[in-house]
């Protein structure tokens, strides 16, 4: 999938016109709230004094909130799939 990185390497699912596109499989299956709680520092870029060797992914906000959002997303997705089968 394509994600978009702002100047602080925070991930976004849509480009506001000032972001950098980045292809990754790290967020496959993840909802928007989860993705946008992460930073992605591509290989060779510098962040916080660290030069990323390999793409680096880490949450910039409370990971428990992101996990809760992902759990809710998966619950809704399962419910939708059940409804589709029923119909």
């Amino acid at each position, binding site marked *: 999938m394509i994600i978009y990185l702002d100047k602080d390497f925070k991930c976004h699912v849509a480009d506001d016109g000032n972001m950098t596109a980045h292809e990754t499989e790290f967020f496959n299956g993840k909802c928007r709230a989860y993705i946008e709680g992460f930073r992605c520092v591509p290989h060779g870029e510098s962040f916080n004094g660290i030069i990323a060797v*390999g793409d*680096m992914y880490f949450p910039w906000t409370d*990971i428990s909130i992101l996990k809760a959002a992902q759990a809710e997303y998966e619950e809704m997705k399962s419910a939708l799939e059940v409804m589709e089968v029923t119909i």
Partner: protein
Amino acid sequence: MIYGNALMPGGSGKAGATLTVSAPLGSVITISKDGESYSSSLLPAVFKGLSSGTWTRTATLNGQTSEKFIQIVADYVDTVEYFAATINVTFPAGSIVECRQGDYVIATTNTSGQHSFHVPYPGTWTVSCTDGTDTAETSVEITENGQTVSIALSYQLVLLDGANTFDDVTGGWSGYSSLDENGLYVQGQTGSALASTKTARTANTFERGSYTVLKAIVSDADDVGWGNYEDRVYSQISFGEAAVIVPETNDEQTVTLELGSVQSGQVAITATGGYYDAVNMYAKIRVKKLWLE
């Protein structure tokens, strides 16, 4: 100078508490506070008319020394037991190291990276070091007279080094392809229509505490594969939800993972593999050393 079993000059009407010290035969007892100092070689040693506050009681016998802080608020009875144990510590050179039990601190100007603390009584002693930025400490239980304990302080928490998996810290590693003096090797699975990932991970979950990054020295990380699906095979190192994808090269490299907001997690090394476009492809990685910093 007040001697044991003597009354204070001026008679028994002197105000203040009485300290009685029993000790092995031949001991010399000295008490001191705020520049005052009194000694006795008569046993038990009795010191009368003491002002309230903290007195230091020292006993010596044949090269042994016992020291104790005694809070005087009323008459007090003390018994000397000679005790000595040694805590040998290695620590990052240039750091300040100390050994402490409660308010009793043993300091040193030795910053060489190796020091021996001689502790005067049993109990839990905390040895700590700092370089002004990082701090490391560990507690040591001292129970026996003559006991010697060796500890190592480091600003790093090493989780893997060659064949050493630090099981007392990690709980052991599982899921790897092989382990030897060159490190832990993980190789993705192939030969199936479905992608198959091989993951080595620690049994224990870690709290990051003051650590901010996970680092690894790796090699042999060049994927085996080509074509449209080559980017499906990759290796990564992770701490909980945070992960870093390892660049594809067989050369030795140091990989750093910023932990971000992740507070706890298992440490894992993953290599993917699969069968794409009728071609077996797999990622691989050898981790020589892995640590939290």
